[in-house]
């Protein structure tokens, strides 16, 4: 799904307005209407959007936006900056550990991902030299204790459990055990509950009172819609949250819940879950989240990743070639080598706005990792001339290349066909994306 980006829509709005000379407050309203729709589509809460828009209006009217040549882009810039500011500007960390052992309480609605997140957090702490203890305090959901035990075994992290006992008793025992065993962080996996369930919310309050946790972290599913504010507010009022963890950000949700939750609790988002594997866990970056909510893709993550391996000038030259359709197998080989260093192709493509579909198409021509190695071998066995002018590769050359690379003629044929298809797809995507994404020296594959 190629959604037309907010900046494009705004540009269009202002283009229509340009003809009528001086722009007015009403024109700004029209532009902000687009912003409003984009935010609502991203699941930012209705009321949060309302407040945000009036804040934007103030800023837009107070600046030189309207006189600028690119008012659309100016508005996007303001929206982006304000979003980043609202979500916390910088990355925030766990509270400093004093008097260990201290508890970290994971709380949240059912199915938000608390158990997996508890294990992920523990594993991250362990990697940083700490000695966490996981505590199975979800005594309600069938096999929840077992789930934590399995995760503990996988990661080599100790798990404390007492079966289906009283969660407060379990937590207190766990703290004692941590003291004895020299654990520093005690991570409590609590049962999922509805914020309107008085009894279960009271259980969390008394847990808090008894164990005096270092942090109470609300685990929120990034796909949550308008209701995110109700749950977050209720948990915050009852417990006094210290932070938020967003999960399931590896999907294609725009994640407006991040803004909603931040707005109603004013608690920093500390980490994000980006996959089912234990190490799919990252610090939260407000700027990346802002681009994502605005449908500008996770550009910054991608840029960061790409910059580690891609030489800027080279890729710019390559991009030019692509647009001009003069991509050669030589370039292809170079890119393959870079891709190998960048990690799974699919992940990379999914981060770019509008490339989800392309990611799928690439999948269809099966550019998996094994294939990459084979492709590399095939291209390496070609002469320079063949790489620059693949059309000269006739059947006897194909046989020679196959022999040289330890592959078959079919493999060579497939590669040439892929290369051809790839050029076509990239040409399509390239022309659609043109002008939308600022290519800061990256070429996306």
């Amino acid at each position, binding site marked *: 799904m190629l959604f037309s980006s907010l900046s494009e829509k705004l540009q269009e709005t202002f283009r229509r307005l340009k003809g009528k000379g001086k722009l007015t407050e009403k024109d700004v309203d029209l532009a902000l209407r687009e912003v409003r729709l984009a935010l*609502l589509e991203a699941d930012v809460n209705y009321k949060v959007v309302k407040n945000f828009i009036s804040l934007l209006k103030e800023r837009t009217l107070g600046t030189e936006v309207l006189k600028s040549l690119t008012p659309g882009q100016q508005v996007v810039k303001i929206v982006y900056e304000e979003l980043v500011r609202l979500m916390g500007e910088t990355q925030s960390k766990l509270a400093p550990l004093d008097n260990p052992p201290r508890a970290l309480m994971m709380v949240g609605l*059912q199915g938000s*991902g608390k158990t997996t997140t508890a294990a992920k957090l523990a594993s991250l702490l362990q990697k940083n030299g700490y000695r966490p203890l996981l505590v199975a305090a979800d005594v309600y959901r*069938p096999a929840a204790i077992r789930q934590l035990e399995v995760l503990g075994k996988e990661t080599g992290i100790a798990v404390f459990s007492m079966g289906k006992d009283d969660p407060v008793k379990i937590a207190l025992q766990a703290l004692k055990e941590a003291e004895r065993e020299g654990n520093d962080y005690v991570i409590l996996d609590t049962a999922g509950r509805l914020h309107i369930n008085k009894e279960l919310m009271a259980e969390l309050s008394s847990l808090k009172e008894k164990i005096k946790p270092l942090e109470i972290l609300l685990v929120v599913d990034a796909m949550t819609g*308008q209701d995110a504010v109700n749950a977050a507010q209720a948990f915050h009022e009852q417990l006094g949250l210290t932070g938020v963890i967003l999960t399931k950000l590896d*999907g*294609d*949700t725009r994640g407006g819940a991040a803004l909603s939750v931040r707005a109603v609790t004013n608690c920093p988002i500390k980490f994000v879950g980006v996959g*089912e594997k234990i190490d799919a866990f990252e610090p939260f970056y407000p700027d990346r989240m802002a681009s994502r909510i605005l449908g500008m893709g996770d550009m910054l993550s991608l840029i960061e990743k790409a910059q580690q391996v891609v030489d800027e000038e080279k890729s710019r030259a390559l991009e030019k070639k692509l647009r001009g359709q003069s991509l050669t197998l030589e370039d292809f080989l170079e890119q393959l080598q870079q891709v190998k260093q960048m990690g799974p192709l699919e992940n990379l493509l999914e981060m770019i706005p509008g490339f989800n579909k392309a990611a799928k198409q690439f999948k269809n021509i099966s550019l998996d990792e094994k294939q990459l190695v084979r492709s590399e071998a095939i291209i390496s066995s070609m002469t320079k001339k063949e790489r620059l002018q693949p059309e000269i590769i006739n059947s006897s050359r194909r046989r020679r290349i196959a022999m040289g690379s330890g592959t078959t003629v079919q493999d060579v044929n497939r590669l040439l066909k892929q290369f051809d298809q790839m050029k076509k797809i990239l040409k399509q995507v390239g022309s659609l994306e043109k002008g939308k994404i600022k290519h800061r020296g990256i070429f996306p594959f």
Partner: protein
Amino acid sequence: MLDKFIKGLHRTREAFKSRFDFLFGNKEINQEFFDELEEILLTADVGVETTAKIIDSLGKRLREAKIRERSPAREILKELLVEILEADHKTGLSLAPAPPTVFLILGVNGVGKTTTIAKMAYRFTREGKKVLLAAGDTFRAAAIEQLDEWSGVVGAGIIKHQSGGDPSAVMYDAVSAAVARNVDILICDTAGRLHTKTNLLEEIKKIYRVINKSLQDAPHEILLVLDATTGQNAVAQARYFQEAVPISGLILTKLDGTARGGIVIAVKDLTGIPLKLVGVGEKKEDLQAFNASEFIEALLS
């Protein structure tokens, strides 16, 4: 303490009443009316596109019927929403003409698939039917144990393999066992998967093929579980899953919370997949057949 509670309750009722009066009281229909309606729909996760569509059609119908007062507009709105939810709607779950009937349950992580399967099984065992469960989530830690525990609670059999095994193989065994043991209903659990993971969608296709090859016309329903708290992403979920296998219905869980689940209106409107069952709690009894008119009533309040 009690006093405070009653006051609080009073306040909610007041707020509710005034908004309700505002929307459908004895006033004429103006822009404000549509703005307020827009807010109600958007805050219920109906989504920008479908909300716009609903407001357009309502405006049209009101003009056609020459209605200028708000109170009769309510019925028309309700009618319109029920129509969207019920269009081309086959009510209830389809059962095979001869047992076993096979249900395949899909959805993203944590929406409530396994719990819903337990609730469905309970409904059928209570009717005296013989139910078998297939532990197809071989991926998530202790997912098999979770279903196993439930199977005991609701009185259903279970077919399970080792954790980490091939889910298609579990399905193959489960279908064979269902036939051999004269089971009435086989319900297949699957691992939660985000719809953006191409390889996991391939796995679902394979599961579907295996079931279909093992038993003609099976699975008889492929049900996608959606969480009522989910926002607009549910539409993407439905679209991607639908592309992989023929989804026949939705199950909306967690309606016992404060989320109103308006997303199913958008999903029905944009993909045509009808809602069949709703989950209203964590216990085995907490499953209901979907009733469009009641659902809309709750959504608008």
